[in-house]
């Protein structure tokens, strides 16, 4: 009973699928944007890979400077607290001073009216806009995304962020008219639909690095990307270091279990 019924059901599915194959065109609709789209360039950072990665604190500090002086005009970083930048090699005193440089929303203790106060290490990086509506109003209806997780939240990760920052260029001459950037849009072949609302954010010498590094667009892009790798996962290096210990421990455990398995089975053919 099961077999004949199953056979009929199977025939039904197979017929539906054969008809689906016969009615589906074998060619794809041409996707022109696809041809102009570029794969991200690889960016090598000290925190890469699993072979003794580390944070390049000087680079992270430079990256944070780029974020603070350039990106933070439009992009929030709301998962990162000032206290977290200890990882970047700042002392408690420096963190306090750094936090003080920001005004964070507060309540006037006498009147209950909205007010602002100096930042504390326990505060989070304040957002540049009060809310999404304000952000869109200021940016031609585009919403600048929060950057805390950006290197984990995009296909291609850090490579994508670095490529996007350095990828602004004039549209190629053979670009079809419908793909040309409209008003307020900027051509960037690393972006999914080629045109994005963000204007090229970095220009040569835009920040002055305290350590004397030359602030080229490429250098600033690398630095801020390295910083954003840290903001996306501050526990990254710790995770890999703990991984070594756990893996090593389990390797010894597994060898011992293998030896006891061989020992117990020594008298049994199997």
């Amino acid at each position: 009973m099961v077999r004949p019924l199953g056979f009929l059901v199977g025939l039904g599915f197979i017929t539906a699928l054969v008809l689906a194959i016969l009615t589906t065109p074998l060619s794809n609709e041409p996707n022109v944007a696809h041809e102009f789209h570029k794969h991200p360039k690889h960016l090598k950072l000290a925190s890469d890979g699993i072979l003794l990665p580390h944070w390049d604190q000087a680079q992270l500090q430079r990256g944070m400077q780029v974020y603070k002086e350039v990106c933070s005009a439009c992009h929030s970083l709301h998962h990162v607290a000032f206290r977290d930048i200890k990882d970047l090699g700042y002392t408690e005193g420096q963190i306090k001073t750094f936090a003080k440089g920001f005004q964070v929303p507060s309540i006037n203790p006498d009147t209950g009216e909205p007010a602002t106060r100096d930042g504390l290490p326990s505060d989070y990086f304040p957002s540049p806009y009060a809310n999404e509506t304000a952000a869109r109003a200021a940016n031609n209806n585009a919403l600048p995304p929060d950057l805390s997780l950006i290197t984990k939240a995009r296909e291609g990760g850090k490579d994508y962020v670095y490529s996007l920052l350095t990828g602004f260029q004039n549209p190629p001459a053979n670009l079809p008219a419908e793909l040309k950037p409209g008003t307020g849009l900027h051509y960037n072949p690393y972006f999914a639909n080629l045109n994005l609302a963000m204007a090229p954010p970095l220009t040569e010498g835009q920040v002055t690095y305290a350590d004397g590094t030359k602030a080229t667009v490429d250098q600033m892009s690398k630095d801020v990307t390295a910083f954003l790798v840290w903001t996306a996962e501050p526990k990254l290096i710790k995770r890999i270091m703990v991984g070594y210990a756990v893996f090593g421990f389990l390797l010894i455990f597994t060898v011992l279990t293998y030896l006891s398995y061989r020992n117990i089975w020594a008298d049994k053919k199997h």
Partner: protein
Amino acid sequence: MSFPWAKPYEPQHPLMKWMDEKLPIPRLVYNATGPGYPVPRNLNYFWNFGVLAGAALMIQIITGIVLAMHYAANAGVAFNSVEHIMRDVNAGWFIRYAHMNGASMFFIVVYLHIFRGLYYGSYKAPREMVWLLGVVIFLLMMATAFMGYVLPWGQMSFWGAQVITGFFSAIPVVGEPVREWLLGGFVPDNATLNRFFSLHYLLPFVILGVIILHIWALHIPGSSNPTGIEVKDEQDTVPFHPYYTAKDGFGVGVFLLVFVALTFFSPNTLGHADNYIPANSLSTPAHIVPEWYFLPFYAILKAFTFNFLWIDAKLWGVIAMFASIALLFFLPWLDSSPIKSSNYRPLYRIFFWILVFDVLLLGLCGMQPAEQPWVILSQLGAIYYFAHFLVILPIVSRIERPLPMPNSITEAVLAKHATDASSASATA
């Protein structure tokens, strides 16, 4: 249950004797996973995966309970509470990544366990009930994993919930009301998140219960083995403890090594970048894909693109996707061959390996956009999938002529050692 030569439980210590009279849990353990459970002596490493699945479930339950202490199931704060776990909770990043990759590890071992069963005919009499309960566990796992993936409330969480509950809207007439009832609204929202959290916490314990039934049903006929020949006498078996506890201990070690490598060195490889973007009902991701363990079924769903008879393509896809799992319930009766092990089934063995390739191909198709050649490959893959179980298997089991089989497990083991020894002396 079990065999007459099973070692009886004889408590020595007065406390154990007292316990045995009042609540014989030690007796239960002794007879289930101790020296009192005789197991065929010839099990290969593929018989480790049941224990590994149990280990994976325990890891999920323990890490999940800790995560629930810090997670907030509210659409307004769920995403941020996960980031709070990742950044501020002590070792929260470890617990969260272990839970996330633990789900993948659970599915890896369960898929190997299922394919072991398919190759060695573990679903056949007298173990049909073991198989049926196994399919129930698999369905519960899929429901649990899906609801768990919604909890971080990222873009894939939200849109995954939207797509999967959307399956129900394909049902004529009642579809849309059923979908709204499941979601508790018109789109996934706080009500959805809360009920999914509640059920995601409940279902693992239901799984645990069905696993107990699964093992109980297994222990009535006893474990199968790679020859598929039933145990005949004492020399065919060894006591579970210490023989298989030792072997499973080694298996658990290897499993944990893979698990740890994934969790610590590459925790996001099996995930999706979009789920680090907070859920947004106004912005659809370019490319909605489920987690890897659902991809073959997702490919079957998408393979149906033609309104055949009075049923539209979407409903065909949904029915086929559910049928692709439901047909496993009928497997013990679809395959009428009395030979269990594919080692002695030359024809079925070929189709088994085509099925393995087919499921991998469907998985690959499932992660691709709806473009050629992936559409036709998933259609061909789906045709083979249904043909394999519903057409080929019943015919093969009728016409196949099995290879000569040994008379007993012991004979098979001794024959293997004899050939090993002769080939060793030939090369020496």
